[in-house]
């Protein structure tokens, strides 16, 4: 449902801020209602499952599964979504393209729901990646800002890499267990822990979770992700998405935890994160930066709790996840309000906000007090649970010390945050702060209220739901715990109070003696910059890839071909079968002398073309045409009129298009004309290339000859001959073969054709010819020719091209008719879509040549792109049409229609397929033609400037 919403939202108009928000909230409310409605079911200990066939043959199902844990996270997600949408409605400026925002937001929500509810591990990873993607899009929402783009890229790289690790880990896990269904996986924890693959699997999954939850050493992306709009920061990067990693760890806790690897990796990363990030947070000047680092440290705290591995720690972890989501989301929103109203987030400027916006300030102070762990607020409870867990940890006392240090740091940064609300009101703010609109404040109020309620009466408010989640994870291991504010004077309480007091002292010391507000770098640890490492790594990667490319690759085609051909020849020589004998007697038997003469001419032409290709391209082209004509005659003599026809058309079009292209190639002068000696090395290289080409050509010829003289077994052509009429509905086997039996091939081929023509067009669109071929060619510059005093348009309309032009205009309808004729008869007689397309293209090419580009385009609207699109769509539609009748893709069908004028004609569905081929051929030929023709137009337009360019270039040299 959120995905559908996302789709709808994407199409809403730019200024539909209210409608977008309504849509999004409606979806969130629906989700919330459904979630709440499922509460009784889940509360009764039942696991709700829903399953759809996805790829049953591969053991993959689209399955949804909701237990207590998923329910709790779902409820959290839905509530936060609702609040964030409400908040974003007021936060986003009317100038921002809101549809995109809400569309991404809903897409994110959908993927997050997917992660939470997936009952299949693979499916969960899929949604996991989708959340990364949505996060990327949301961070880069203000894509005109460089920091947003950079942050988005960084977060995507890190989280997607983690996602890849996760996928690998999950695949290994699935392999160990033998199933990807979560139910099956959760049931066999002992098996997994005992398996030799346990360590790599666990490490990979942990990598996935830690990158997502910004754990050390992957924490650096989160502060950079703060370039996103504040609703996004509060939604994705504090309350929901970063919790996905935590969720995954909790989810797989029953099967992966309990080993020393688990404890060391998870708790170790958690402690590093927690301490470093909270230390960093103290020295931030940006409000959002502070919150980002504090988010990281809280995530670290939760990770530590998970790493401790005792059931009570699990309770604390889940509880703290909830608490953190409430107070951190509200803090982000409060910061957003401050930013929105005062125009800055710099803590060095902001002062005395309590006087200007008392209400918001109070809310923010309460929330940050919860963050610091002040009693009677929810943060206090979970933090106390954390302290008591560290005491019971089996690996020594240092964990408790770390916890207290963390407590001190967190109090310090909370104080740093709170400080902006006190003091003299600042005067130099970009805009005068005042209270935000009523409903913009509401989400903050609601969340802070939650903090208070949970903090004062935890057992009544959050207790049952928490219990539900804990039970679904721990099952029978569920410990006895009590959520109470007052547990009596015990060590955790002392630790809390001590941390609070020391934190205050620490902050005061920093403030008074260490000049906190003027430190730009984080002391001691500023060298631990993950972002710096990330950037250098990528720089290194780019440079390294460049180096590898220069070593192993080349942009010149000659060496590539050299390598390919050499490898081909060597492998062919190695694999050459011994029993191959060339029986030349077979070739000379029944030799028709005229045919031999024809071939002699053809071969001479081909050799001549190769000979002249370097210095006299035009001659080579003409000789090539001669070879083409000979090939065409050969086809005719061997009774293949279809091929002959096609060959003729192809030759014509090719010759004209190459001719048009030749004009832009600079002339090549032979060494004799240039009076230079060709060095011996060059001769050596050329001889090598020549012999290589010769061997390759000889090999190909030998191969073809061998294939031809090998006695025919039962070949596939007999099959086609037999079936063409009965099954393909046409007596022209070649055509039936192309459009029916091997329709899928043809479809691929016309796609290639389309791509090629689009590429040619794209390349020529920005093509700048070599300076020496920029000026008009000598033939068009010679004053002896009277035509040069006319513009191309004049030449075509009244000049020497007038008579041919008029003649051809007369003929072109006939050519079009012939094209239609060839097309219609294609299925049974020589012809078909390809030839017809070429014929039509020739008609248009002729018009271009004789009437001129300007004239023709003023009268005929060609749109080759639409031809291409039409052709491809028709082909696809024809192929897909077979599905409607329950046949596989591209199955063809023949009917006979009786039309009033034409009599009975038979219409196979391949007819429409052929129509598509026809359109694609016409479109791609015209597209290339247009590209070439416009190249000529462009250079004619500014001969003066190009001339001067050329001259300056000459002077420079």
């Amino acid at each position, binding site marked *: 449902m959120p995905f559908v919403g996302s789709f709808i939202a994407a199409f809403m108009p730019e200024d539909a801020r209210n409608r977008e928000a309504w849509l999004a909230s409606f979806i969130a409310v629906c989700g919330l209602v459904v979630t709440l409605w499922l509460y009784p079911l889940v509360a009764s200990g039942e696991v709700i499952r829903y399953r759809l066939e996805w790829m049953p043959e591969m053991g993959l199902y689209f399955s949804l599964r909701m237990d207590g844990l998923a329910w709790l996270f779902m409820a959290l997600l839905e509530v936060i979504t609702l609040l964030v949408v409400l908040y974003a409605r007021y936060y986003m400026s009317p100038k921002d393209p809101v549809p995109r925002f809400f569309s991404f937001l809903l897409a994110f929500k959908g993927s997050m729901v997917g992660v939470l509810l997936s009952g299949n591990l693979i499916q969960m990873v899929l949604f996991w990646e989708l959340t990364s993607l949505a996060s990327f899009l949301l961070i880069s929402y203000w894509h005109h800002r460089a920091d947003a783009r950079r942050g988005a890229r960084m977060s995507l790289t890190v989280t997607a890499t983690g996602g890849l690790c996760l996928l690998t880990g999950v695949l290994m896990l699935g392999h160990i267990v033998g199933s990807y269904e979560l139910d099956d996986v959760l049931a066999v924890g002992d098996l997994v822990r005992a398996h030799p693959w346990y360590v790599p699997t666990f490490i990979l999954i942990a990598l996935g979770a830690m990158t997502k939850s910004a754990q050390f050493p992957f924490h650096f992306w989160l502060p950079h992700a703060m370039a996103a709009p504040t609703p996004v920061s509060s939604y994705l990067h504090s309350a929901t998405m970063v919790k996905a990693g935590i969720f995954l760890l909790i989810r797989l806790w029953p099967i992966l935890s309990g080993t020393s690897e688990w404890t060391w990796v998870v708790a170790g990363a958690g402690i590093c994160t927690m301490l470093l990030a909270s230390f960093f947070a103290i020295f931030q000047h940006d409000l959002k930066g502070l919150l980002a680092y504090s988010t990281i440290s809280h995530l670290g705290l939760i990770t530590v709790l998970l790493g401790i591995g005792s059931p009570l720690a699990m309770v604390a972890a889940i509880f703290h996840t909830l608490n953190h989501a409430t107070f951190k989301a509200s803090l982000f929103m409060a910061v957003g309000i401050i930013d929105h109203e005062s125009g800055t987030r710099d803590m060095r400027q902001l002062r005395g906000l309590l006087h200007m916006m008392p209400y918001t300030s109070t809310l923010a102070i309460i929330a940050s007090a919860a963050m610091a762990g002040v009693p009677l607020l929810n943060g206090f409870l979970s933090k106390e649970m954390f302290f008591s867990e560290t005491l019971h940890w089996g690996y020594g006392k240092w964990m408790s010390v770390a916890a207290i240090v963390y407590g001190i740091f967190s109090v310090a940064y909370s104080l740093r945050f709170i400080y902006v609300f006190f003091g003299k009101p600042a005067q130099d703010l970009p805009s005068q702060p005042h209270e935000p609109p009523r409903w913009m404040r509401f989400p903050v109020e609601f969340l802070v209220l939650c903090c208070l309620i949970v903090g004062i009466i935890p057992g009544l408010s959050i207790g049952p739901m928490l219990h539900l989640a804990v039970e679904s994870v721990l099952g029978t291991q569920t410990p006895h715990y009590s959520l109470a504010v007052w547990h009596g004077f015990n060590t955790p309480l002392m630790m809390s109070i001590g941390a609070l007091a020391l934190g205050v002292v620490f902050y005061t010391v920093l403030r008074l003696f260490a000049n906190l507000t003027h430190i730009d770098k984080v002391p001691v640890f500023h060298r631990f910059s993950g972002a710096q490492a990330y950037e250098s790594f990528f720089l290194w990667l780019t440079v390294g890839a460049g180096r590898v490319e220069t070593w192993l690759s080349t942009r010149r085609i000659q060496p590539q071909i050299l390598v390919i051909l050499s490898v081909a020849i060597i492998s062919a020589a190695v694999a050459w079968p011994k029993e191959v004998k060339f029986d030349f007697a077979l070739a000379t038997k029944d030799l028709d002398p005229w045919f031999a003469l024809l071939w002699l001419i053809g071969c001479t032409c081909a050799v001549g073309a190769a000979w002249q290709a370097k210095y006299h391209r035009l001659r080579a082209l003409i000789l090539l045409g001669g070879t083409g004509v000979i090939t065409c005659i050969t086809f005719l003599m061997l*009774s293949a009129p279809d091929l002959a026809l096609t060959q003729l058309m192809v030759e014509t079009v090719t010759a004209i298009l190459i001719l048009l292209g030749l004009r832009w190639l600079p002339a090549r002068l032979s060494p004799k004309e240039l009076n230079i000696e060709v060095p011996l090395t060059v001769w050596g290289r050329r001889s090598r290339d020549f012999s290589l080409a010769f061997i390759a050509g000889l090999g190909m010829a030998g191969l073809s000859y061998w294939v031809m003289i090998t006695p025919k077994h039962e070949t596939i052509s007999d099959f086609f001959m037999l079936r063409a009429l009965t099954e393909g509905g046409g007596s022209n086997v070649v055509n039936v073969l192309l459009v029916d039996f091997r329709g899928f091939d043809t479809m691929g081929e016309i796609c290639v054709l389309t791509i090629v023509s689009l590429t040619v067009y794209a390349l020529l669109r920005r093509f700048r010819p070599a300076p020496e071929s920029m000026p008009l060619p000598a033939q068009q510059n*010679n004053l*002896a*020719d009277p035509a040069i005093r006319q513009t191309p348009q004049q030449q075509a309309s009244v000049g020497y091209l007038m*008579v*041919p032009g008029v*003649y*051809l205009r*007369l*003929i072109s309808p006939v050519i079009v008719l012939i094209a239609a004729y060839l097309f219609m008869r294609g299925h049974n007689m020589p012809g078909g879509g390809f030839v017809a397309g070429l014929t039509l293209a020739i008609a248009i090419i002729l018009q271009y040549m004789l009437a001129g580009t300007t004239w023709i385009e003023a009268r005929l609207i060609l749109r080759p792109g639409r031809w291409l699109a039409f052709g491809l769509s028709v082909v696809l539609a024809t192929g897909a049409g077979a599905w409607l009748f329950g046949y596989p893709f591209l199955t063809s069908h023949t009917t006979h229609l009786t039309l009033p004028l034409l009599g009975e004609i038979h219409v196979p569905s391949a007819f429409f397929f052929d129509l598509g081929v026809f359109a694609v051929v016409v479109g791609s030929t015209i597209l290339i033609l247009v590209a070439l023709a416009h190249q000529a137009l462009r250079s004619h337009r500014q001969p003066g400037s190009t001339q001067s360019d050329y001259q300056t270039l000459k002077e420079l040299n």
Partner: protein
Amino acid sequence: MIYVIEPLPLWISVIVAAFLILGGLIVFIGGLGLLRLPNFYQRIHAPAIAITLGAGSILIASMVYFSSVESRPVIHELLITIFVFLTAPITSMLIMRAAVYRDLQDGKIDYSKPSSQPFPVEKED
């Protein structure tokens, strides 16, 4: 390629044969002219004759033959004739223009004295 040649009435055979031979002769003469004539502007006429007259004769032969074989008037060849008549002059014109251009470039035609030597006689190579 096996054509079953049914016996034709004698007079039809004679007509067809006569036109074929005539067409062949004309094309041959055209080819000879292309080879032998001294000057480009004279040479260009040789294929023109071959195309119009020679192809015309052969097409007439074809019409007569197929009309007789299929016992109905077969006049597709008229279309071919029309197309040949339409396209051949275009080719000739463009080729001749290229020749004129070449001669202008080489200074073989002098525009200042238009009437003096409109079609210069080239020297034998």
